């Protein structure tokens, strides 16, 4: 099988907007995603997993393996759409995959 290089777009943000961000990413062309609950720290201070106090204190890390153009639209898009009011970062990096049709429309 021949490998192909596409992108992995990663968004780390408030669990409170998990659903919105996922919808946004799939809307831009992500055919799938993987999500995990994480803690962290940034300009908006420490964000720790106090499950009792609710999602808005926790972070989620959402990653989607997508074609380069989709990845770029995702990371630029989330910054514009969400990161004015919500805590978060977004980045992308190259990944080599086998079944490229699985990740493209």
């Amino acid at each position, binding site marked *: 099988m021949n490998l192909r290089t596409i992108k992995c777009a990663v968004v780390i943000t408030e669990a409170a907007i998990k659903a919105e961000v996922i919808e946004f990413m799939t809307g831009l062309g992500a055919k799938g995603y993987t999500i995990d609950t994480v803690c962290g720290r940034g300009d908006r201070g420490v964000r720790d997993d106090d*499950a*009792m*106090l609710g*999602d808005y204190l926790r972070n989620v890390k959402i990653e989607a393996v997508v074609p380069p153009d989709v990845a770029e639209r995702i990371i630029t898009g989330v910054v514009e759409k969400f990161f004015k009011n*919500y805590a978060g970062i977004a980045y992308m990096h190259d990944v080599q995959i086998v079944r490229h049709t699985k990740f493209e429309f």
Partner: protein
Amino acid sequence: MTEFFQISLQNILSPPILFFILGLFAARVRSDLEIPPAVGKALSYYLLLVIGFKGGVELSASELNMTLIYALAAAVIAGAALPLIAFPLLRVAARLDRVNAAAIAAHYGSISVVTFVAAVSFLGISGIAYEGYLVAMMALMEAPAIITGLVLARGGRGSNVFSSAFVREVLFGGTLLLLIGSFCVGWITGGRGMEAMAGFIKTPFTGVLCFFLLEMGIMTGKRLSDIAKAGLPLALFGLYMPMIGGVMGMLLGALVGLSLGGTVLLAVLCASASYIVVPAALRHALPEANPALSMPLALGVTFPFNIFVGIPLYYFLAQKIFMLL
């Protein structure tokens, strides 16, 4: 006065409050003592289920009268009115911008279930009864408080206040849904239901509350340092606002004809500030508001104030009021 000291001493020397203090201490010395989040959440669900169920059972036992109607109306009014009192104070005394003032105001119109539970267990120790429907009153205060807050934030224009996300957060949010749901189950199944559930509802209750307040103490302790950032005027608001709310609650309670216990609990509801439901709802409905301001205030200042001073104080004052009546 000595009488008040006795009451608050009796309150502070009860296991739940002592475990709360233990939690505060653990957080201050940066101990790794920490109830796992999953368990903490489950314990909070247990308390909601118990409080709701008990309220429902008690309601099923008592015949419905006008007082109930008045009381429920009073709850809605209180939830909507408190933010209107808090807002100007926050704007002027604490010099907050419109949005953040409105956001915090909403927190204080709403309620803290754990404070309510602590008050219930306080009344329990003193053997004082209360109306079962206070749980329903508690449930009715959230929405008006948040809506008022949003309208204040939008400068009168209550645009898109009722977004679907908002409704889901507030009406169908886990906290409220479990509380009301358990209330209904208790109401439907009544005494028969309590019989079957007593071993779960009553037997471990105080112990679980201790466990839970231990965790609350840890979380509160962790946030004490954030209060400094909030600034003195805001911290002071976290102390006098509950007293304003508490007095208002007492008068409302006496007015609608609640029992002594019920009056104390309504005072506690008005005095307490939400740190779970409202923050979650506002994160969607008012994202410009800064949660780092409201959280430490409600959890770090007002919550411990009510636990240590508020509850016995409102009880003490309510007694005095009921003597006059």
